[in-house]
């Protein structure tokens, strides 16, 4: 009797122990509602311009490598890579047995086709500059490709984590042609189920996905342009995840027990480009004075509600090549006045400031604060605010047509490497109209170091070069160094295990639902 009882208890205990995890976490989640601000224009990964839509593409296509929350790379569609000693040939091993969601095998030929398309000058690829170093893609065997480069480019592994080069199913390209942007077929954990223009994008689980099976069956991205409404929907339980809530309400959302907020530092820096081609901004002392005149800490705290960090180096701290710079341009109006005096600043001159509206977090408010703080040290200013399209066509106009001396802009490197910021903004190679060097900065010494850094294969030495280059511009102040944005995402506190990366992306496919 007794022993059988004991057995019964034991069995019950085993059953219970087995059931408990099931009770606390639901293994299968039917659907997650995600509120986003804009509808997708295209779901072709090669035609992307915004991070958010690239994020959705990642879920459909998967990438060669994946940037983990700690910034390190994880192999996905590619398992390993080798670099030739001269740095001009990269050999990439593809994961075996992977199929696109339509059943087409993901082999070297398919990858080559996608690369060829990304490099085809006849096709629209807005972010192509990120892969301009690639000469061509060669098929070695069924599961191996080789990338031939025009010049060595050390952070190419980071580049291969970009949505831009995610392989597209060749069968889908054949079937839909350019309309593949409406009918995306990739090898990712999800496939497109429904796309109701202006309202929602619905993804369902891809049952033939090569990796671990996602716990969430369906992801519904709802287009909610008004941020206050988006937050209201999260609070009302209509949304499970709210993409980029207003920084002003982050504190309140955090205080809400039903909501969790994450905000890792992003790669995007916000700055005022002090245009070197404008007479008023020519003097280094003036540019330094401006940097001392603006209280960046107050801006971050009061206007951005700590959803950003003041810049203490030339790039975001999470990038390879970052270093904290000395001296720091801490808020010091007295020093600013002194420097202006040294530079013989004529206080009757009016500095024309430009700012977009609604492009970056509280952009106009930031510009207004800067305007007021410059005025406080005796610099007359005039602020003009424009909508983004008008602004964009004004900012890069040459000297004689431009109306601005300083412009508020943001620059978010797409890979975790300082090259895209330091090369892409300050070398003579990107001096407008050739490129997008917003500060119209040109310095032969700086160019030399940056070119050298691109040839350097040893990461430690390359990092040293990037820091050396940073020191030059930190001293020269082609920018008014403002802040590094954080990527804010709020979601139901029931959700556990959300993956949020420093590249401003989030991956909800393996989350669990607590009680």
């Amino acid at each position: 009797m007794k022993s059988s009882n004991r057995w019964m208890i034991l069995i019950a205990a085993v059953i219970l122990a087995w059931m408990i995890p099931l009770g606390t976490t639901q293994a299968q989640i039917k659907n997650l509602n995600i509120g986003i601000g804009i509808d997708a224009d295209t779901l072709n990964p090669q035609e992307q311009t915004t991070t958010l839509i690239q994020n959705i593409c990642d879920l459909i296509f998967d990438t060669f490598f994946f940037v983990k929350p700690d910034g390190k790379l994880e192999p996905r569609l590619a398992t390993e890579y080798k670099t030739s000693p001269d740095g001009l040939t990269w050999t990439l091993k593809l994961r075996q047995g992977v199929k696109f969601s339509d059943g087409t095998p993901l082999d070297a030929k398919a990858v080559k086709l996608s690369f060829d398309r990304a490099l085809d000058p006849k096709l629209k690829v807005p972010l192509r500059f990120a892969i301009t170093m690639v000469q061509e893609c060669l098929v070695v065997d069924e599961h191996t490709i080789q990338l031939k480069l025009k010049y060595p480019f050390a952070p190419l592994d980071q580049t291969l984590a970009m949505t831009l080069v995610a392989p597209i199913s060749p069968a889908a390209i054949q079937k839909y042609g350019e309309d593949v942007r409406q009918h995306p077929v990739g090898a990712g954990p999800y496939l497109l189920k429904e796309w109701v223009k202006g309202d929602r994008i619905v993804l369902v689980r891809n049952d033939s996905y090569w990796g671990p099976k996602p716990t969430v069956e369906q992801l519904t991205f709802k287009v909610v342009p008004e941020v206050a409404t988006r937050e209201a929907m999260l609070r009302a339980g209509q949304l499970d995840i709210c993409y980029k809530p207003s920084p002003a309400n982050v504190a309140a959302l955090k205080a809400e027990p039903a909501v969790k907020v994450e905000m890792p530092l992003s790669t995007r820096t916000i700055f005022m480009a002090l245009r070197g081609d404008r007479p008023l901004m020519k003097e280094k002392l003036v540019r330094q004075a401006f940097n001392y005149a603006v209280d960046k800490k107050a801006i971050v705290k009061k206007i951005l509600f700590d959803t950003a960090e003041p810049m203490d180096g030339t790039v975001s701290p999470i990038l390879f090549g970052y270093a904290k710079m000395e001296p720091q341009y801490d808020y010091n109006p007295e020093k600013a006045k002194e420097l202006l005096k040294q530079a013989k600043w004529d206080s009757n001159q009016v500095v024309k400031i430009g700012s977009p509206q609604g492009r970056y977090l509280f952009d106009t408010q930031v510009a207004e604060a800067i305007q007021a703080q410059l005025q406080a040290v005796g610099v007359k200013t005039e602020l003009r605010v424009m909508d983004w399209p008008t602004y964009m066509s004004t900012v890069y106009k040459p000297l004689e047509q431009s109306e601005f001396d300083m412009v508020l802009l943001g620059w978010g490197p797409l890979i975790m490497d300082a090259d895209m910021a330091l090369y892409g903004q300050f070398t003579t190679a990107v001096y407008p109209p050739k490129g997008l060097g917003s500060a119209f900065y040109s310095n032969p010494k700086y160019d030399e170091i940056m070119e050298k850094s691109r040839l350097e294969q040893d990461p430690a030495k390359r990092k040293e070069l990037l820091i050396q280059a940073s020191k030059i511009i930190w001293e020269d102040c082609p920018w008014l160094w403002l802040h590094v944005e954080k990527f804010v995402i709020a979601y139901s506190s029931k959700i556990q295990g959300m993956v949020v990366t420093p590249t401003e992306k989030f991956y909800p496919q393996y989350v669990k639902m607590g009680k």
Partner: protein
Amino acid sequence: MFQYTVRRLISTIPVLIGISLLLFVMLRALPGDPALVLAGQMASPEDIELIRVQLGLDQPIHVQYAKFMSRLAVLDLGRSARTQNPVMEEIWARLPNTFLLATTAITLACLLGIPAGIVAAVKPYTRVDYLVTSFSLFGISMPVFWLGLMLVVVFSVTLHWLPAGGIGTWKHVVLPTVTLASFVVAFIARMTRSSMMEVLSQDYITTARSKGLMEKVVIVKHALRNALIPIITVVGLQFGSLLGGAVLTETVFAWPGMGRLIVDSILARDYTMIQGSILIFGLLYILVNLVVDLIYAYVDPRIHYD
């Protein structure tokens, strides 16, 4: 009647061509280069140029217009510069939503506005009248987006009764409908009131009353019928403009309709999309006016078209 309808439809063609020409010239005057906007901040000058060529923006404006018109002749509005999708398809995705919201809002506004206007007209300068007038003024004076946000805060966030935004169930329709109707109802109530007051002062109403007809019969059968024409005009006008999309309401309630589409296209400098949606809108507006005219003839047998 049929002949009249056909004639009216044909006469809309020059107006539409005029609109298209006006639009074409106006759009090209917009500051901001569409290719630059489409390419994004990080695109190279070569890619921007490529996009410009793809959009046909490198050609002289009259060539662009000729191309646009020749496509239009076969009812092709071209492809959106932003999404590369046929403009027709994009509009079709939004039009039913706009139509739904416009219909519910105008229905609600009629159901509230016409009776309220009648009551106010029957008992002018009484408390009821003041109440109706105050409420309708309230609706006209309130910034719609503010009202919308308040409704969201109260009914979605605090009370959790209704969804704050999006489409799907009947519940999603309630708040945007109420927001829009609060504005429209005012026009309808005011028009009903003044139109009814005028009719009620007419001789034949006095006659009808003196014949001992019930007040209800007098009001509904004799007065309302005669007061209906201006009311229908207002309802038609309001419905027509609701079809153009209630930009602000759609923004607040994340309603994927025509208004939002037009605003987003303007902000993205998507020329083909703006042209297409505004042309379709102009056509709809003209059609609504035609229907209103035809309803006149139905309501008032004295009106004949021919």
